[in-house]
């Protein structure tokens, strides 16, 4: 990882964690998609999803049979996995 891309990644992380606290959830989602596209395995997004769930989450009915309090984490994990696979396929 070059110094420039590391700086960009840290900047995006700062924006992402700021968005978690102060901005609507879809801003964080857009930042996660951007991060996953431009950086390899954007793991920070999973931490951001976990923070979103811990701050605002309540157990919700998931797949109509279980109470699940990690909707954001699951969503961000899926996004990261899908984008990693799509990037591999496109090479």
């Amino acid at each position: 990882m070059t110094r420039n891309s590391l700086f960009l990644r840290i900047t995006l992380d700062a924006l992402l964690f700021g968005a978690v606290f102060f901005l609507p959830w879809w801003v964080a989602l857009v930042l996660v998609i951007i991060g996953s596209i431009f950086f390899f395995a954007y793991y920070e997004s999973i931490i951001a999803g976990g923070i979103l769930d811990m701050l605002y989450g309540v157990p919700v009915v998931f797949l109509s049979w279980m109470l699940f309090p990690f909707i954001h984490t699951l969503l961000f994990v899926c996004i990261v996995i899908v984008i990693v696979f799509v990037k591999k396929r496109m090479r």
Partner: protein
Amino acid sequence: MNKTYRRNEQSKKHLVIGGAMFALFVLIATVARMFLPSLSDLASRIATPVWTAGEHASLVASLGGIGAWGGGLLVAENRALKEEIEALRNERATVFADAHTYTELMSRFGRSLEEERMGILAGVLSTPPRSLYDTIVIDAGSRNGVSVGMLVYANSDMPVGVVARVGAVSSVVELLSSPGRHVEVVVGASGEIRASAEGLGGGNFVIRIPRDISISVGDPVSLPTLSGACIGYVSVVDAVPTDSFQTIRFSFETSLQDLRFVMIRPYGTSIFLVDGMTLPSFGTEEVSEDASSEDE
């Protein structure tokens, strides 16, 4: 042939990796769920000062800003006088903020702060759509006497949610409009049409009732309480000739984004139950004591 075989092998490998990652996620989620209350409490403790500072900054900014008053004149003043002026300005901004808060409380709840001790007054730290969950975070927790299942009011008699999770200094309130939640409502001014409103999130609801019942846009929707608290007005009536039911949509009368204070009560003036609401334990204890004394 060789290429196809390699591609199949690769996709199998990808599937295995994907499955393993998902299994790992489920495992982590299960473990994290066991520690969720303490983790959530820790996160809330860290986030509360951040939210409070953001809220205070926006309030001061909306009132005109501290440093914006006559900065040019201060250049000529000596340091002592400058400090004194700064102190006075800060004091004035605080007084303005307090007066603003007090006026808002009076207009919303129609009573003084002393009287409000009947319930638990809490500031709103975050409102939808901060997350996918239809929740608000308030700055009162178990230390203030908040417990899971209490009703949360936006003004004197309009409940907006139920306390779903309690930390030491903050709580998460699940709104009545949370997707999948059902609330009993009365549609129309006559008070004769009762229906179950389903939450759609963001303060929006949908009702499905037979098409024969006459409902029009602008009809009030209220809760079946003694005071008949109006929670909104019908905004859309969707009746299709092929469907024997009509779909009615409405949203909270109060804007959730502008919500700054809420009142938490065990069950207060409302005589109705919503999903997830629990009666406070002292009520059941009294009942059981009475029952045991009657048995004796």
